[in-house]
């Protein structure tokens, strides 16, 4: 599709010719985000340098009734920044200044293209950090973090993006500026900052975010426990939390993931274990000491076969390195993999893992499990070979079944990666048509003509009708015996 020349010249006038890309070669790098199975080369890429230029792009798109998709670093895992045909891709990476870092008030005001890790690095000399730490934190930007409500391995205790965001300055598709939230923590009116967070670029474009900084903890300890049985490991997770301890991180891996990580980074994981638990505790010296002893005792009671506490920061980083490189490590086991992102109530952990194992065997595709056990957020990695006829379809089918299982036990189809284009189908499993229609209503309130990131995050009812026809076999819902709540 050829871009509208009038729109292109308006954009060039507002942004400068070098900030508007239209050639196929220049636009090619922007054809997908980290969900690289879906691609569309954008017809126009706009690279504004300021909030005013962002607004100019939105106003021009509004005038020309042209869809616009915001993109940060393109690390999203669900296709949220996938360009749409006939639209403008609004790339925010040049808005990359830390506008203000105030150690006294413990906040940072940043442009959307600042990376997650840059904030913590800038805050570190003051003994502060920005808590949400998605695994892509070296590259992912704060604008994208707001759009996806990004989490990380420490969010059970330290919160998601929504818990650490104080204020956002937002450009709407109607060409208005909104200030949502406040450094005071509360703002008058409805809590629209919470609604914006995780809205996948559907409601507005963040041009500045003010985030809370936390003091670096006085003491950090990391325990690694190995189990000969997945169920014992899953039980240990519930026991730790029920005991009144909230770990900073509580991560679990199953045997294929342990072996892959150990082979990849040699981090000292016991490769004969069926399950591995990493439990990080942080806080004041005495409190951490107290919790450490309690957790050690609990893990022994739960039947841990190996129990190790990292002796220093270097060992702690090494023990974490296996977990943090688990995706690429598993990626070496097969030509392709899909990463699922369902969240379940923790009490179903062992049963769900058993069921995933059965489903994996039935499908003939291996699954490795790496997940945020503390908050029940699973990341089953389905291994396949796109070169083998039928493999992609079988992998997609298995993925959909896993997400349906998550919903059936009272969970969700996406804990932190977002819906994007990837999970539009599974959304139909989780929500009824009334809820979906209400989501479209929220969208209408912000963007009546549906120009911001159209077609993402919320499926149309028509799409769900098709999806339902495909998924419901013989009038039977999968896992019909399980309660749905």
């Amino acid at each position: 599709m050829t871009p509208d020349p009038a729109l292109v010249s308006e954009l060039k006038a507002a942004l400068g010719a070098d900030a508007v890309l239209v050639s196929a070669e220049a636009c090619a790098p922007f054809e997908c985000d980290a969900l690289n199975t879906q691609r569309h080369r954008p017809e126009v890429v706009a690279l504004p340098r300021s909030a005013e230029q962002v607004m100019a792009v939105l106003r021009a798109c509004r005038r020309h009734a042209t869809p616009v998709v915001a993109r940060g670093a393109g690390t999203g895992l669900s296709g949220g920044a996938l360009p749409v045909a006939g639209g403008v891709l609004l790339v925010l990476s040049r808005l990359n200044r830390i506008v203000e870092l105030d150690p006294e008030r413990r906040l940072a005001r940043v442009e959307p293209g600042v990376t997650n890790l840059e904030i913590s690095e800038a805050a570190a000399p003051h003994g502060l950090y920005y808590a949400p730490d998605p695994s892509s934190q070296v590259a992912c930007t704060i604008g994208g973090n707001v759009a996806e409500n990004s989490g990380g391995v420490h969010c059970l205790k330290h919160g998601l993006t929504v818990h650490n965001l104080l204020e956002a300055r937002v450009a709407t598709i109607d060409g208005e500026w909104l200030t949502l939230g406040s450094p005071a923590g509360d703002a008058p009116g409805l809590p629209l900052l919470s609604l914006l967070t995780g809205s996948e670029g559907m409601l507005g474009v963040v041009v500045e975010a003010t985030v809370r900084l936390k003091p670096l903890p006085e003491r950090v300890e990391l325990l690694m426990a190995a189990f000969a049985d997945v169920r014992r490991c899953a039980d240990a997770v519930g026991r730790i939390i029920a005991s009144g301890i909230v770990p900073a991180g509580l991560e679990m891996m199953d045997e294929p993931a342990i072996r892959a990580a150990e082979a990849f980074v040699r981090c000292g994981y016991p490769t004969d274990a069926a399950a591995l638990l990493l439990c990080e505790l942080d806080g004041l010296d005495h409190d951490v000491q107290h919790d450490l002893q309690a957790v050690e005792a609990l893990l022994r009671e739960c039947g841990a076969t190996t129990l190790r506490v990292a002796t220093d920061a270097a060992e702690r980083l090494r023990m974490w390195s296996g977990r943090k490189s688990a995706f690429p490590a598993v990626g070496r086991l097969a030509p392709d993999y899909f990463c699922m992102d369902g969240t379940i109530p923790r009490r179903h952990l062992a049963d769900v893992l058993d069921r995933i194992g059965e489903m994996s065997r039935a499908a003939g595709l291996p699954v490795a499990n790496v997940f945020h056990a503390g908050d029940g957020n699973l990341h089953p990695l389905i291994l396949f070979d796109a070169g083998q006829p039928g493999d992609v379809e079988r992998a997609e089918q298995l993925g959909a079944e896993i997400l349906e299982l998550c919903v059936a036990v009272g969970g969700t189809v996406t804990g932190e990666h977002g819906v994007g284009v990837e999970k539009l189908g599974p959304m139909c499993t989780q929500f009824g048509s009334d809820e979906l229609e209400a989501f479209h209503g929220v969208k209408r309130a912000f963007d009546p003509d549906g120009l911001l990131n159209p077609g993402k995050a919320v499926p149309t009812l028509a799409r769900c009708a098709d999806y339902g026809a495909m998924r419901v076999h013989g009038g039977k819902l999968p896992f019909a015996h399980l309660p749905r709540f």
Partner: protein
Amino acid sequence: MDRDDTEALVERVREATARRAPLRVLGGGTKQFLGRAVDGELLATSGHRGILRHDPAELVLTARGGTPLAEVEAQLARCSQRLPFEPPHFGADATIGGTVAGGLAGPARAWAGPLRDFVLGARVLTGDGRVLRFGGEVMKNVAGYDVARLMAGSLGILGVLLDVSLKVLPLPAGERTLALECDEPGALERLAQLSRGALPLTAGSWTGGRLHLRFEGSDATLNVIERRVGGEVVPDAQAFWASVREQSHAFFAGRQPLWRCTLPPLVPSLPLEGAPLLEWNGLQRWYRCPPGVSAFEAAAAAGGHATLFRHASGAHEVFASLAAPLLQLHRALKREFDPAGILNPGRMYADL
């Protein structure tokens, strides 16, 4: 006692929508003073009650909107857990639905976070009688817009809260409150200094020349803090914090308008007459202003906002005004959830 009143509530709302008859949504009736006055027929939610699920290992509790807040807190206490935002009751009949709709938090707010941070899911009855379920009972959930959280502090203008799911947390190992004598600037300086450190300061409040500081942690931690901070240990600290939270403290007595100012960190004393009561380490400040005097300007000038919390004389709006595009957005959302505009009309802003 527990009862699912969903059908009756839906019927009542549908019928009111058909007549375009405004409804005044009422839980336990403990926070009727909050917000602007609503003229409408009563929609009582207190019959729709009962705790639906609470598994301590999940850190989640789900209850019907009309469940008494006291019942929820008693259930959590039995399992050594709590609502981290320490909500005020303002009366024995407070309900969990009214608590979420009111969006208020108690002394722990600056440490634990606002109420909305703990909303995981909600079943909502919209103004046109739809029953919608948003969010869920899991900690991480980014499927669909976070409409459940939007209900926090929405004052019932978007929907009636049928069920809510809240994240709960364990009780701390221990708590200790220290008191120091100082004036207001001295208190603000002390709070600023303390909030620069990493100490678990879970509440900080100053009134009448006395600064109360509450810390939590193990005994060993609390002993270290006590030595470092100084002051005297307050023996009946729970009573003090309850009097601040429930506004039964002498500061709140009388009919003089009560203003609440919410401010960014490190704001010096506001140019308002009369000594305030400081909370949330200085982020929330209460003032008793003579009728006709407004705190809106002073709070806004300091980067925060003010609310005429109690004893409005009618001379002022209750909530700080919204910028025009923001108010427009509120109206558009209201239309989506309550097309006939029958739920608590005018409670938050006129025409909303």
